[in-house]
């Protein structure tokens, strides 16, 4: 019996002492704003799909923001402030976006967020960020309703959230731009409209249709396809019998490529024109020779024509990222840089120090941001939309996308 109680006693004593020593508190060295020493660390959050089928785009966003943060730290862009990036994966799902938004809001060092990729995700995040006055800059959302309110089409524009900005160009610009190109440059007057029923495609076709009919063109027919479908034979037949000059497609290349392929195979050799969702090398790969003669609009000037863009490409390569910056890399870099510029303005207005409530100040400063970024001049209008309205038309020639025309949308 004696050794038994001894065992018990030692055990209790050991654990007791150990527990007592545990009553210390761990020093928190995770960077939160307002520490007394020289440099304050602030975080730029990223919300994008980092896994799943859209991960290539999401990781491009993450890396580009990372590059912006590193560049700002290297050049000591904002004296006394060190930037940090924190990326969260939203899996392209609105629910996860909502969770990420609360998490970013909860982290007091987060001073601005770049993202998300999907409009549906943005809908669940906007209000949470807005309640916390946390700036959110999307590099990719194109739905005009996000900045101009649900009734933007009827002309009653109202900005729903003061904290939401975007560097991406909206459907309200890209669709009409394509309409002007088709009507004036190509001289085509009869369109067949197809969309794939996702938010991007529907928005694009809607704005295209309005502008095209305003210019005097006619809509020979319209069809809607289910995203992910393979058999477009009924659509192809409808296009053929409508006698349209060209097809305007709203959606992404996985749906557009089989459509154009089946259309050309059916003997109807008319151009398919789409938005930046089609402007992807995979489009040409999937559609093969059928892609020749198709067009796509994309936002901004071609990378090779802007020196700032070339710097970005060089730096990105030098950064050693294993994945490409993708379609939204430039916009993500500009989004992050816009936040950095806003922080800079706030700090210099507050005699070189970050104010105690920096989020609100940064939100205010965002509207005055103006700098020359990867995609051109970056600044925001009264709705939070990018003022840069430069677009480029690309066409498939001999199996590669080539620049056709760069222009600025006006009106």
């Amino acid at each position, binding site marked *: 019996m004696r050794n038994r109680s001894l065992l018990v006693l030692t055990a209790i004593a050991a654990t007791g002492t150990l527990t007592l020593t545990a009553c210390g508190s761990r020093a928190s060295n995770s960077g939160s704003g307002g520490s007394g020493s020289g440099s304050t660390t602030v975080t730029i959050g990223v919300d994008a799909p980092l896994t799943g089928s859209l991960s290539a785009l999401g990781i491009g966003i993450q890396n580009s923001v990372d590059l912006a943060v590193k560049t700002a730290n290297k050049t000591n862009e904002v004296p006394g402030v060190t930037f940090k990036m924190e990326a969260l994966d939203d899996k392209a799902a609105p629910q996860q976006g909502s969770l990420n938004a609360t998490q970013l809001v909860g982290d007091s060092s987060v001073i601005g967020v770049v993202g998300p990729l999907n409009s549906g995700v943005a809908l669940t995040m906007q209000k949470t960020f807005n309640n916390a006055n946390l700036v959110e800059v999307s590099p990719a959302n194109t739905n005009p309703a996000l900045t101009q309110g649900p009734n933007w089409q009827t002309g009653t524009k109202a900005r729903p959230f003061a904290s939401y900005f975007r560097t991406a160009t909206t459907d309200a610009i890209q669709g009409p731009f394509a309409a002007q190109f088709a009507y004036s440059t190509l001289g085509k007057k009869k369109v067949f409209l197809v969309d794939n029923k996702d938010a991007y495609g529907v928005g694009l076709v809607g704005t295209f249709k309005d502008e095209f009919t305003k210019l005097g063109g006619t809509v020979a027919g319209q069809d809607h396809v289910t995203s992910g479908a393979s058999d477009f034979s009924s659509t192809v037949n*409808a296009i053929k019998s409508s006698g349209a000059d060209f097809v305007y497609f709203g959606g992404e290349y996985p749906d557009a490529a089989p459509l154009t392929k089946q259309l050309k195979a059916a003997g109807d050799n008319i151009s398919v024109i789409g938005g930046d969702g089609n402007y992807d090398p995979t489009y040409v790969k999937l559609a093969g020779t059928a892609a020749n003669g198709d067009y796509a609009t994309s936002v901004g000037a071609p990378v090779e024509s802007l020196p700032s863009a070339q710097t970005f490409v060089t730096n990105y390569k030098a950064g050693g990222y294993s994945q490409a910056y993708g379609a939204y890399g430039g916009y993500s870099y500009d989004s992050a840089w816009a936040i950095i510029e806003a922080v800079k303005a706030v700090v210099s207005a507050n005699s070189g120090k970050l104010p105690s409530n920096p989020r609100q100040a940064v939100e205010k400063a965002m509207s005055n941001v103006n700098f020359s970024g990867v995609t051109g001049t970056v600044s925001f209008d009264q709705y939070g939309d990018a003022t840069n309205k430069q677009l480029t038309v690309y066409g498939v020639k001999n199996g590669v996308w080539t620049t056709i025309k760069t222009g600025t949308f006006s009106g």
Partner: protein
Amino acid sequence: MHELPQNLVNGLLLGATYGLIAVGYTIVYGIVQLINFAHGEIFMTGAFGALSVYLGLGSGTSMWIAIPLMLIGAIVTSTVIAVLTERLAYRPLRNAPRLAPLITAIGVSITLQQLVWGFYPSAKSPRVFPSLPGGPFHIGGVLIQSADIFVVVAAVISTLFLAYFVRSTRTGRAMQATAQDPDTAKLMGINTDRVIVIAFALGAGFAGIAGVAWGLRYGEIKFDMGFLTGLYAFTAAVLGGIGNIYGAMLGGLVLGLVQNLTAIYIADIPGMSQFSSQSWSSVWAFVILILVLMVRPQGLLGERVADRA
């Protein structure tokens, strides 16, 4: 004005592909009363099997040599996978309540899809599938691609072969016996386990052929192409009368026609113009399924095993 003959042909071609897949549902259901949800994925793996063979052949190979090899590749891939899933997932549950194998089938379906998505090279986006040379042919104002001819030939030969097999071979008669009464069939000396495996393998073989047909017609295959297509194929099997092989083919053809024609001609019904587009066609297919269940639950040709369950 909408080129009715062309639409009819397109619908029938789509339907023939559904029919090829539906045969697999119908045989398996007829024998073990299991809705094999993974069958759509078997179809998909068949297509990827064919693509792997094609990629392995090198670029100079003539399609006339490649096609038979791809067919073999597709059939072998889908059959092996189907037999493995039967062995590993379904057989241990043969005496479990019905819910268990159904849930397992869902699990198998998702697993197969994710395996292809995650581990087949660049299968995260659609993969280009080779196309047949020659064509298109104009026959009486209707445009026919060479892949379409492949579909017709494949569907006709497969159905005839299956009919012969089930009616005239020993194994085929054993299958019929097992479908009617597994216990008695066992007493009569039929190895029902073997019959069930053969049923799975047969269905998978047809799914493999359908996979090749699909790839040839649309020029691309993707990891999730089996999900909705499988759903339509099952609808086709129910339409035709589950357990009935000819019914599956007929159901497929009807469903293909419904999908193709509703996408265009619903617009001619007054007040329905908005409901006619490709994006509504799957809804109409579903409505047809519900209507058939209400009006003629045994299907168009009637079930072969109507008195069961």
